[in-house]
């Protein structure tokens, strides 16, 4: 099986995955109200730095793209732009119901209802809003996934780029996408 040999990690990749799991730098894409839950997660009450996590200034430096809320067509373009600027391996965490199924905006004409049609989401955190406990729990899961080599969304994106690109173009209309992604 070809997929099987691809799933096998070399020794250095296992070591690298250990480092990647315990040093997670995040880029928050604060599109919606979810961002308000991040400060308590970061500060002394929950202290996510104890997991080796922290916010970073730019997507170039970050490992995780955290999308904290609903996505309109306008923001989705920018999220994709940011995601493509990140360095491999990179992970996407969908935060809150809005990224899962549109949340309270499920019937809005201007809102994307499913993030994983456009970007490879490694982990969703359900809730409206998810509380810091849930977030910490999710990060714990993410760390385990990375350590085991299960968070492979970035590779999935590379392999199925055509499918993702088709969805992106479908929702954002070709002419603008072409223009705005500097193709």
């Amino acid at each position: 099986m070809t997929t099987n040999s691809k799933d096998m990690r070399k020794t250095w990749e296992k070591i690298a995955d250990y480092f990647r799991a315990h040093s997670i730098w995040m880029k928050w894409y604060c599109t919606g109200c979810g961002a308000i839950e991040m400060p308590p997660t970061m500060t002394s009450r929950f202290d996510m730095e104890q997991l080796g996590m922290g916010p970073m200034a730019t997507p170039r430096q970050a490992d995780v793209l955290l999308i904290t809320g609903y996505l309109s067509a306008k923001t989705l373009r920018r999220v994709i732009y940011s995601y493509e600027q990140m360095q491999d391996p990179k992970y996407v965490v969908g935060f809150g119901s809005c990224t899962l199924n549109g949340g309270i905006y499920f019937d809005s004409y201007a809102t994307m209802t499913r993030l994983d049609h456009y970007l490879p989401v490694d982990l969703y955190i359900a809730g409206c809003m998810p509380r810091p406990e849930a977030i910490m729990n999710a990060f714990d899961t993410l760390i385990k996934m990375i350590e085991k080599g299960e968070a492979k969304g970035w590779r999935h994106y590379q392999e199925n780029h055509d499918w993702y690109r088709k969805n992106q173009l479908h929702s954002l209309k070709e002419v603008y996408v072409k223009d705005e992604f500097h193709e």
Partner: protein
Amino acid sequence: MNLMNFVYAFLLLLAAFVFQTTLTGINRKVVARLQRRRGPRFYQQFIDIFKALSKGSTTHGWVFDFGVVMALGGIMATAIFIPFGPLKAVPAMDNIFIIAYVLAVGMLGMAMSASGSGNPWASIGVSRALTNMLAYDIPFMMVVFGLIFAFDTSSLSGLAAIQREGGFLGWHVIRFPLGGIVAMISLQGMLGKKPFDSFIAPAEIASGPMVEYGGRHLGMLFLLHEFSTFIEVSLIVHLFFGGGATVAAFLVKYALIYTFLNIVSNVLPRFKIDQAVTFFYKVPLALAVVQTFLIIVVGMGVA
């Protein structure tokens, strides 16, 4: 210079890296405790550096890569010149002016690479960093100038040895208190710690020079940061705190000074860049000139 010098130099570099990176990790813990958090593991900084090195990266052209290599190379070369306590990899090369200017190679490399990315934020960051340098370096160099005049040597280990003759009271920070204060403030500026950290302001200019770095480039910049911290703190230990008769003494002094500055840094807000310049030219520069005047004209504390 023979092969043994280089092997020795490599080992000292390794030691400096391990020591400073551990110390950075411990200091992250200290800061966390100040903020009543649990904080990361003490070896978190190692994980961060190796992780960054292990990741993929993007480049904006050859100068982007070349600048990073030149920066890290220049800074490591400077670190080789620094006496590690009593240990010296290269004999008779710990001249303070050589160190000050070789250090600039690394700075220039980094600035070049950052501007080479084409991101204006990087250039803004570099312009602030250079302005900052113009502010903190001059008071510091003035004080150093006084010391060199007083003791007729510009060798770091020479100046450190002179201090140790008089025991604790012979330390230059005791004999030249104004100079000591200036040096500590300048060190805060050199390290880019608050209140002089406007050039990396993450929320304002997206971490300034570092904005475009990821993967191995970022990992190398982290290495560079550890080495330049080692150089700058060591300078002060050698010039004002008696250096180290033994490696242990050197490292203890070093750790205490670094931790102290880090704690100070974490209770201060941030200066705008022009405020930083004005501050340095008003207070530390005046103190430095007074101190140097006292040394050169009055001969105070030299005896």
